């Protein structure tokens, strides 16, 4: 037999064998995912695209796969393989590899969403997806329309937040200007802040120090800044009375800022020599180690006044109760709603939420700052109006049991657009779930 004949027979036999082997294994390919939709992520800088697809019919996590338990084991989807190629690089030079299909990610069974954050703004991308079975077999590909990510100039999902901020900012700016013109503004008395002078005076009489804790948050938190403004006043009063002030801090940057604040306060009080920088000291970043340090100091030195102003967590009660046990007069202020009851239970005076933020303006007596408080009040009034409108509309819907109409559309708009993230959107869209939604 000639060599060429032997070769052809060999090829025929091997092809026949592989065909028979394949037929005998009874392997079934997984079904492909469908409806791959790729969109440019809305309200971003054009640096990501969103991929969504319908799960494969042989994905056992597919809720539409009612016979999941009967799915052929060899066809069960284990992962989805996602490939990408760049079809237009917007004039930039491209590697050959990028122009061809490349695997960029894979998603697990049951997953139907992926965000590609490795795209370039202005380039055009093609995507395709297939399912991969338990045996490593792939389904056919499901393609999508090409997508070109672009940058949005403004994050429209936050447009109502911007509008509210402008309204509140407008009120505040107007009343700051109003105060600048010299017109008088009235601010109600805040007992907790009035008590600070009394507390420092008591410490002076007893010859004991004043303890000031600025919370356990870092300097980039607004509560810490608000705490520092109160510290400025307390330090000034302490300098005027000749009392000692002790400020342990939980963050190094807060220590540095507190030193500047106290030093300036002593200078303003005309007692720069009385300023002792070592009394404003760093303890530790660890929450409970900090508490141990501060409470240890309280028990040993028994300060006559303890003032807590800033962001506190679980340590609030330990500090306040220790202060209570040593008989110190205590004033606290925080914007942590969960810690307020503890301070109320253990301290003599507590600044609740907004009072704490108003402290700086209140203590300074500066008309410009007090004007901002007036603006804040009008902002609150505006919020109450929206609240009342929402309650009124929700009550009408609830009493009339209506599921559509102007009232439902209005409530939807308040919830989804004004308080949600759907931006300006269109009036009359979205769903309402009055029952069971406490957002």
């Amino acid at each position: 037999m000639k060599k060429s004949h032997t070769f052809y027979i060999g090829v025929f036999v091997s092809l026949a064998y592989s065909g028979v082997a394949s037929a005998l294994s009874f392997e079934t390919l997984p079904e492909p995912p469908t409806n791959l939709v790729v969109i440019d992520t809305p309200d971003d800088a054009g640096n990501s695209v969103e991929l969504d697809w319908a799960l494969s019919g042989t994905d056992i996590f597919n809720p539409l796969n009612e016979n999941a338990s009967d799915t052929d084991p060899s066809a069960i989807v284990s992962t989805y393989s996602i490939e990408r190629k760049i079809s237009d690089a917007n004039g930039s030079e491209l590697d050959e590899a990028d122009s061809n299909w490349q695997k960029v990610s894979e998603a697990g069974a049951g997953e139907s969403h992926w965000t590609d954050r490795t795209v370039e703004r202005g380039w055009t991308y093609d995507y395709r997806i297939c399912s991969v079975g338990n045996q490593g077999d792939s389904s056919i590909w499901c393609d999508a329309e090409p997508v070109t990510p672009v940058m949005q100039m403004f994050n429209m999902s936050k447009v109502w937040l911007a509008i509210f901020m402008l309204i509140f900012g407008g009120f505040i700016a107007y009343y700051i200007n109003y105060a600048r013109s010299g017109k008088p503004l009235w601010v109600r008395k805040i007992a907790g802040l009035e008590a600070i002078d009394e507390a420092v005076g008591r410490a002076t009489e007893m010859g004991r120090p004043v303890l000031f804790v600025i919370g356990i948050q870092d300097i980039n938190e607004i509560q810490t800044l608000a705490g520092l403004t109160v510290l400025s006043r307390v330090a000034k009063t302490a300098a005027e009375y000749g009392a000692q002030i002790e400020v342990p801090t939980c963050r190094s940057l807060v220590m540095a800022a507190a030193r500047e604040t106290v030093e300036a306060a002593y200078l303003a009080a005309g007692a720069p020599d009385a300023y002792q920088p070592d009394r404003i000291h760093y303890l530790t970043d660890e929450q409970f180690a900090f508490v141990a340090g501060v409470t240890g100091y309280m028990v040993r030195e028994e300060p006559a006044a303890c003032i807590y102003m800033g962001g506190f967590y679980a340590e609030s009660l330990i500090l306040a109760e220790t202060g209570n046990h040593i008989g110190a007069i205590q004033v606290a202020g925080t914007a942590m709603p969960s810690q307020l009851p503890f301070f109320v239970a253990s301290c003599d005076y507590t600044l609740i939420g907004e009072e704490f933020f108003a402290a700086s303006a209140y203590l300074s007596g500066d008309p410009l700052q007090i004007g901002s408080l007036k603006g804040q009040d009008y902002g609150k009034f505006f919020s109450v109006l929206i609240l009342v409108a929402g309650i009124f509309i929700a009550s009408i819907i609830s009493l009339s049991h209506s599921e559509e109409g102007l009232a439902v559309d209005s409530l939807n708009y308040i919830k989804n657009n004004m308080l949600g993230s759907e931006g300006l959107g269109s009036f009359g869209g979205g769903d309402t779930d009055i029952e069971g939604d406490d957002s």
Partner: protein
Amino acid sequence: MKRTVPLIIAIIAGFVLLIANFIPYAEGWGLKAQEWFNILAVGAMILGGGNLVKLHLIKISGQRKGWGYSAVTIGCFVGTLIFGLFKIGVHPNEIYPNVGWSGYYLEGGSGLWWIYQHMIVPLTSMMFAMLAFYVATAAFRAFRAKNTEATLLLVTAGVVLLGQTYAGVWLFEGWLPESMQWLRFDHLTEWVMNIPNTGGTRAITIGIALGVVATSLRILLGVDRSYLGQD
């Protein structure tokens, strides 16, 4: 100058973060600002650590009251620093087996891991556990029926406390008519937590949010400079 430069930095940083929240192009600016803050915080850690050591060394050298505690603090500080910096007990990373310090600093079984697991975690848990006793003493004081409001608070607290346990169901089992089931403590607790409690918390939260906006604006506009040590 000492006040003006920090004020300008604060105002610029504040406006950058504000803009970054609304303009997608500036999203990265906020992250950059956060990175700069982290760099500053690391630098400040040295300042804080130095301050801690200095104060306690002064206390030890002067043999002031409680100087023994300072000695323990310095000992723990130095010991932890040595274990952490030199990665004692840490094995080299599998990718860089020849680089001695390439392992993860908190690797299981290492010195620093041991200090963390067997000293810091139990001590922290101990401090946290003390909260239970403090809650009891604070509750005892807060719930004394001195006047109408305090009595109301006491009754509400009692109902909620029982409603959170099986007693809230057990006390009314078998005798309360179907139409009066809403009086069961577990149902009353649910109502108290969902209606008055949620309403009160939201009122406080709205006030806080507006306070944050007003304080931020005062700082951004340079009206409030007291955090820089100036009224």
